[in-house]
């Protein structure tokens, strides 16, 4: 148990129910009264391979993972060899594998760290009780629960909720829990002593992924149509919205490709409802011409891009923050746009609402970046934040009577022209992706082209004035200032929460484009070191900040192996630059 957290890692092959066990355990820990963060790793295949589910829990706020664990639950032989290495001192590994040959190195490790490797006769017990093979995972889960010395009532309750409609499955699961409770553990195994205080209020908290939070944020913000083509790690937004569509009345459509998805979104937004589309980097590549069209025709558009490592198909089920440049520069021609990035489940809920308001008020395309790490990890939240007021920037009330067709792209001081909806007035308008003048008709005249181009670009300045500066976490002076965006926030904040890390601060960019650098410039000289931290190779935010204010980041902590930042990596980095 290091860094004020206890870590459980479940490993096995895809198809062995790793995810279900992880989710049940996460919920169990939450309902016991702990703070918990759940992180998944899995390969891009349906059966086989090696997948894990990691649960970090604590009595303080945690939103990122450790790279070492105290208890490993292994459902496959691969899992044993993979998970033994990073066990903490006095760690326990339980498994149900018939024969395992440990290497000499592994045996040394067991000796050195005083690890316990325990074979559990799960297969035999399940067979005897007439259960199906997959129940092994529930059996091991409950053995683990006993080792944690926790009450299995919560697990029983979760199982009951999960299989409420499947009586036979439920009966077998409950029997399995009983068997695990009565199972004779080998001699000499000491249960873990979890010293964390249990907080009653955690029991009613939410355990939610970034994707679910984002979908809920969209529902709450009045999104009435959702279009998407499946692509990891964005797909659970589609499947969740489809699952609850009969409750919400939302029209949810799986399109034949990403171009269709974005064009249907544009059509619905143009007509005047709120629509949304999500994809990952490769899918967004296909949308970039449509994105450019939204810029030219001034049709509001919000696209969620759930990042995974590229280029091309890359690492489909892993995480990255490498698509910032794409978001800022995709699409031909010059046009105003806005780029936001979520950093955890709470921010995912709000950032999609911010994006919808920005898109409608400024009549521009907006990208919301998220990452596999945010999209699929489970975060503990007291509640979702309060929803934002809906701002649509539409012509309202009596004003509509004074509207004329030529007002649609009217040149104004802010660059923002009146927007009304098809069907609202006999004064129709022409939404044009060809260059056009105020009334929308095509123009090739040099003066008109220049004036309307300037009008469009003016919106970027207006938008920049309205956007907030990046947020400072910690004091505005100290030893190290980390600067980053996306999921790195959670890891840096987890590190800052540790008692011995008082001199660290973090500057977080939620709105990345147009980039604001005033706050950064004001505080950067108050720190001994400025460190750029990003989940990509080149430090893309660093480049944007450099463009914005000329600052050259000398210290960079960059990671591009498909994994998120783990707390130890930041702790080690702090130690290395302080040497």
């Amino acid at each position, binding site marked *: 148990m290091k860094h004020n957290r206890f870590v459980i890692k479940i490993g096995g092959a895809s198809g062995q129910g790793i995810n279900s066990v992880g989710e049940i355990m996460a919920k169990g820990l939450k309902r016991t009264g702990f703070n918990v963060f759940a992180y998944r790793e899995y390969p891009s295949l349906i059966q086989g391979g090696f997948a894990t589910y990691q649960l970090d829990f604590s009595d303080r706020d945690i939103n990122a993972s450790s790279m070492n664990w105290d208890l490993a639950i292994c459902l496959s032989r691969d899992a044993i060899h993979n998970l033994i290495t990073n066990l903490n001192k006095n760690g326990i590994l339980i498994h149900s594998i018939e024969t395992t040959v440990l290497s000499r190195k592994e045996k040394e490790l067991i000796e050195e760290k005083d690890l316990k490797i325990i074979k559990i006769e799960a297969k035999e017990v399940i067979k005897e009780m007439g259960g199906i093979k997959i129940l092994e995972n529930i059996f091991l889960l409950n053995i683990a629960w006993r080792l944690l010395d926790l009450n299995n009532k919560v697990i029983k309750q979760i199982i009951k909720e999960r299989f409420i409609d499947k009586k036979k499955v439920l009966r077998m699961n409950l029997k399995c829990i009983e068997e695990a409770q009565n199972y004779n553990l080998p001699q000499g195994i000491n249960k873990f002593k979890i010293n964390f205080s249990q907080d009653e209020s955690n029991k009613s908290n939410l355990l939610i992924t970034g994707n679910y939070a984002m979908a*809920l944020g969209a529902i709450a913000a*009045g999104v009435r149509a959702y279009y998407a083509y499946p692509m990891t790690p964005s797909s659970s937004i589609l499947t969740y919205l489809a699952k609850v569509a*009969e409750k919400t*009345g939302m029209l*949810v459509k799986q399109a*034949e490709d990403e*171009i269709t998805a974005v064009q249907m979104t544009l*059509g619905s937004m143009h007509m005047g*409802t709120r629509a949304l589309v999500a994809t990952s980097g490769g899918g967004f590549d296909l949308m970039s011409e449509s994105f450019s069209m939204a810029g030219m025709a001034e049709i509001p558009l919000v696209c969620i891009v759930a990042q995974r490592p590229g280029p091309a198909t890359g690492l489909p089920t892993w995480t990255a923050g490498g698509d910032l440049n794409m978001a800022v520069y995709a699409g031909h021609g010059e046009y105003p746009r806005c780029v936001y990035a979520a950093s955890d489940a709470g921010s995912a809920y709000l950032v999609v609402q911010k994006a919808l308001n920005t898109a409608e008020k400024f009549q521009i395309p907006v990208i919301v970046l998220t990452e596999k790490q945010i999209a699929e990890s489970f975060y503990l939240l007291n509640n979702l934040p309060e929803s934002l007021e809906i701002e649509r920037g539409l012509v309202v009330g009596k004003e509509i009577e004074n509207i004329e067709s030529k007002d649609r792209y009217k040149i104004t001081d802010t660059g923002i022209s009146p927007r009304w909806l098809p*069907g609202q007035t006999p004064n129709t308008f022409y939404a044009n992706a060809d260059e056009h003048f105020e009334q929308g008709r095509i123009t090739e005249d040099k003066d008109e082209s220049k004036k309307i181009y300037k009008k469009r670009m003016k919106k970027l300045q207006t938008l920049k004035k309205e956007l907030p500066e990046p947020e400072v976490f910690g004091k505005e002076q100290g030893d190290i200032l980390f600067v980053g965006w996306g999921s790195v926030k959670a890891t840096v904040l987890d590190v800052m929460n540790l008692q011995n890390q008082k001199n660290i601060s973090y500057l977080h960019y939620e709105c990345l484009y147009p980039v604001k650098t005033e706050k950064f410039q004001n505080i950067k000289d108050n720190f001994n070191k400025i460190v750029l931290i990003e989940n990509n190779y080149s430090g893309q935010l660093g480049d944007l900040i450099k463009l914005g204010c000329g600052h050259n980041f000398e210290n960079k902590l960059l990671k591009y192996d498909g994994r998120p930042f783990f707390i130890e990596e930041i702790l080690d980095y702090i130690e290395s630059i302080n040497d």
Partner: protein
Amino acid sequence: MTNNSKCVKYNDYFSDQLYTWCTNCGNYALHSALKRALVAEKIAPKDTLMVFDIGCHGNGADKIDAYTVHGIHGRVIPFAAGAQLANRNMKVFAFGGDGGILSEGINHLVHAIRCDFDLVFVLHNNRNYGLTTGQASATTPKGFEMNSAPNGVTEEPINPTEFVLSLDPTFVARGFSGNIKKLTQIFKQAINHQGFSFVEVLQDCPTYNSATPHNWYLERVIDVDIFDNYDRSDIKQAKKICKDMAEKIATGVLYKNEDSDDYYTRQPSRKDMKSELVEEVQQEQITELLEEFR
């Protein structure tokens, strides 16, 4: 489609922009027939959304007064579908050419038919790429010399109506720009069909298509109405009669299935909903949905 639009005049659809198409372009007749049909059906410009693709026909987007959209190449169908789903009080049209619809965005055509979105889609088939000065399209006759195939087109052409009929559509018509009266009747029926109305319009391109000019069609076009026993609900008859594109080219409403529900009507999430998506944008309570995450 609202009550105050009962009295719709032909002039209401006039724009103050001048037409820029070539003399004798088939688009003039098509626009004329379209306006006549809309007036006959008492649909006002205010209640009409027209989505135009890239190409010569797209340059007509500001030559007709309605709520119009001029998008990017090949993508009119999904844009129009998204718009129609959002507000079914508007009559939605999508226009595309043989380039944008049978090459660049042919996938959208296929899936829009599968979905049966309730919109009128008009295929301007002039059998070449006019605006880019006469390259071959997917409907250019094989062997014909085009500037992108100076020794003659080597690919087999697609027969659009035959292709569409293979996809189990609910409304298929073929018209000819040389017959405004007939084309008007076709548009009227397309407007009244609930579902995806596919209307192919064979039209002259006086500048770049010398393979199948106006007179070529005049000598070949026949109207299915001349057959006493033509059954529009029989897809087999339609498939048979549409094949001939060389001697007797059948025009008119070739196939209609009135028994199928359109996409929106089939959505369980929209069942019993009286309002349109455009009327529903407001803050929603999500408390109940949060229970599964506790």
